[in-house]
């Protein structure tokens, strides 16, 4: 098996982008970013505005010239035409020539991606249906809503069945149903063997679909790993119980933290050593245990804490 077949799907090493602002001031947008995304994974690239996520993606795709670093997709320089042939890209808030119809736009992107001429019509119909735009092939894009353009953007990104799909804020402009469709689509792509690199502000979206995430801040990768490793709180367990109208038994309440009572479902966390005793006490009080799992910090909390720490360091 060749190196091309064995290596990571996406490999970024030492990526750096420095913009020179007239006359000589320099602004570092991305600084020494290294990222390896294994084949068949969904990898999240997270971070606040200005963290360098989009610039990193643009360097990967050859849209922005890097100041330094190497970029590869399936072992091929991703900035070359051969490298880009493996990649489908959805830019943030995609827009299209407004006078074209959806079918004409799809035909354009299919031809540019190398889809054989005889397959374009069938592929267009299949993809428009897959992204929820069936019956819109003849509609001029100037009549499309923001969400419809987003869906078309997703369709054009996967028109050539790419091995690697790069999505920049794919849920932007979509209603909750559309966001769910995008999540399902990403998981379908992974099931089909594609690798997905997802840049997102929607942390809940990343939390749901990503196998690993890289969190960027101020142009650098501040943390990277499987979501479970980043977010699990060592030594604590989250428990969800029901059927306790009077609230948690006193013996549990005394050791529980993060208690949230929502419509009869009570969620709380305890030290791992207290789990057995807490569950017994809940049953003794007539309640039922609905869920027991390692306590996981929400990505939002993690993000907030990380940024607060950085501000503290700066101060």
């Amino acid at each position: 098996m060749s190196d091309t077949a064995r290596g990571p799907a996406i490999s970024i090493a030492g990526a750096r982008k420095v913009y020179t602002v007239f006359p000589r001031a320099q602004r570092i947008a991305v600084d020494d970013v290294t990222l390896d995304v294994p084949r068949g994974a969904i990898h999240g690239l997270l971070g606040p505005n200005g963290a360098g996520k989009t610039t990193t993606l643009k360097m990967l795709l050859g849209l922005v010239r890097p100041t330094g670093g190497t970029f590869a997709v399936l072992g091929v320089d991703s900035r070359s035409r051969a490298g880009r042939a493996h990649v489908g890209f959805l830019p943030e808030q995609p827009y299209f020539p407004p006078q074209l119809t959806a079918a004409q736009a799809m035909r354009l992107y299919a031809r540019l991606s190398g889809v054989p001429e005889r397959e374009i019509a069938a592929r267009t119909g299949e993809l428009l249906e897959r992204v929820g735009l069936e019956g819109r092939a003849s509609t001029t894009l100037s009549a499309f809503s923001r969400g419809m353009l987003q869906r078309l953007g997703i369709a054009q990104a996967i028109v050539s069945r790419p091995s690697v799909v790069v999505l920049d804020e794919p849920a932007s402009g979509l209603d909750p149903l559309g966001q769910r469709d995008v999540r399902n689509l990403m998981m379908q792509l992974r099931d089909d063997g594609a690798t997905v690199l997802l840049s997102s502000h929607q942390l809940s979206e990343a939390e749901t679909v990503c196998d690993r995430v890289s969190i960027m801040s101020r142009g650098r990768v501040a943390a990277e790993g499987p979501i479970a490793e980043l977010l699990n709180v060592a030594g604590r367990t989250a428990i969800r119980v029901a059927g306790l109208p009077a609230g948690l038994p006193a013996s549990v309440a005394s050791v529980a933290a993060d208690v949230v009572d929502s419509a009869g479902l009570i969620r709380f966390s305890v030290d791992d050593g207290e789990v057995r005793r807490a569950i017994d006490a809940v049953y003794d009080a007539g309640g039922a245990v609905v869920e027991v799992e390692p306590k996981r910090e929400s990505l939002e909390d993690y993000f907030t804490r990380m940024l607060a720490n950085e501000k503290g360091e700066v101060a």
Partner: protein
Amino acid sequence: MRRLSAIAGAVFLDAIKRRVVLAVLFFAAVLAFSAPSLPSYGAGVDVGVYREVALSLTFAASIILALALSANRIPSEIERRTVYNVTAKPVSRWEYVVGTWIGITAVMAAVIAAFTVVDQAVGLIRYGQPMWQLWQGALAIWMETGVLTAFAVAVSAVTGPVVVAVATLTFAFIGHSRQPVLVSYPAFPGWLYPSLDSFNVINPVAHGTGIGVVYVGLMALVFAGWVAALLALGSLGFMRRDL
């Protein structure tokens, strides 16, 4: 070739449907129909003068339209990010620049052909002559418009639409000022002057017997040279640009 034709086809389809194309066509047709009745000509207006006015109107309208279609094409694609959907695909930057030029130049071919058909129709109705030699003038106008479009596309690959419009008009003005400039500055090497005078065939077409095949061939050479040089520069600038 497939990628070039795909980009050019999309640019053509998008541009031909724009209102500015219909508006310019409409007003050019109105002017063409009113040309024979212009007061300065009076009754019995000369056929040659009509041809000159018709070609001049076609030229002016073509310049306006070429600028309208090309000055903001690439800048607006960058601003609206439509460019990402193309350049992130296995497409070279030069293919994007050249494909854009081909698309706009194809629109200009259609529009100039429409102008010429209207001019011919008016000539036939008013003077009873089909005036086939107007097509020689139309070809020259299309070639010059192609060069100006190449200039506009090249400049727009690195800067914004206002600069493109001013630079292109300046280029057109300088291109047609060779004679007076060289008279005023005799030390300037004439062979270095960026002249567009080869495309100015209004006089022989309107008042003479037209232009020969050899001249058309020379004009095509000048056209190809200008377009190749300008698009090469534009592609080079676009390749070095962060999107």
